[in-house]
């Protein structure tokens, strides 16, 4: 039995980070199809296009020029057909207030950016796995909070 690939969308202005993410997803055992956008403006343009097939999960860098991850999150939560997309925020900041604030604003997952590739792969695998359970097992999306 073949599952459909998990559609992943990533918004990050740092080219190296985008590359690391893509590589990490290539190495995890769950099949994913990864789309990349370079900043918040591009992200919102992409998400609001009619032809876009919405992702199963969105990874959002908090610190981006032009439009920050937080701005994108607030916008997404106010758009009817986008507000149910699970959002994973990732950031170098690990302050409790930052984490709590993004959760309160509707993020589901908060990832402290790991410094090495192996940890990144492990973290992403865990996130995709648990997100998949929410997607397929009728768990309550509103109660989906994960800090990792």
């Amino acid at each position: 039995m073949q599952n459909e690939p998990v559609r992943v969308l990533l918004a990050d202005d740092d080219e190296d980070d985008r590359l690391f993410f893509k590589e990490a997803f290539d190495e995890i055992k769950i099949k994913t199809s990864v789309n990349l956008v370079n900043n918040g403006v591009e992200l919102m343009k992409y998400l609001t296009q009619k032809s876009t097939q919405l992702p199963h999960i969105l990874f959002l860098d908090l610190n981006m020029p032009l439009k920050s991850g937080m701005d994108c999150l607030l916008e997404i939560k106010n758009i009817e057909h986008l507000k149910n997309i699970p959002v994973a925020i990732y950031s170098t900041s690990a302050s409790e207030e930052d984490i709590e604030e993004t959760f309160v604003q509707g993020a589901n997952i908060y990832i402290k950016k790991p410094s090495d590739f192996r940890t990144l792969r492990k973290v992403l695998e865990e996130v995709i796995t648990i997100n998949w359970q929410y997607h397929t097992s009728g768990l309550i999306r509103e109660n989906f909070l994960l800090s990792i």
Partner: protein
Amino acid sequence: MQTACKIILQQQLDKLKLDYSIPGFNEVEINEPITSNRLIQMNTFLNNYGIEILDAPKSVLIQKIKDAIIEMVYTEKKLPIFKISTYLAEKVDHSYGYISALFSEVTYTSIENFIIIQKIERAKQLIIMDDLTITEIGWELNYSSVAHFCTQFKNITGLTPTTFHRIINKRRNAAMNGSKQNTKSDVGLK
């Protein structure tokens, strides 16, 4: 009986000119994409012999396992003390080795982990309902101690039960204030 069944299957599937194999009793693999029309045709042919097609039996089995786990976690009474593996194997009528391998393959997580996820989900609902203390919830879900419960909650969510509760409350208040922008924002806070 099994041989007879197999021969009938072969005859009927040959009639449909499908590329198939019969890996075991009760199982046929079609090695090419099949249209729903041909599937209906196949069903009609096989029904004449009292053979029924169960579409994607693996996903049916996975659903049965999930249902059994959810029933177990949400049952009003205490969770069963006896071995969960025996319970599940009997419930779905397959060996535990088979169902646990199949489950991991299809759902990307193990049965053991799925049970923990479901227990933590139930815990979240109980926390939000606000009727029980954290200690009572741990007890309700059969944890040996409140510390064990909190540790497992933190392992799965990255948050303590108390932090989780606080965030959900804040989120609700924020949503409430957002929808009543014209009223004073501090009323109705708990």
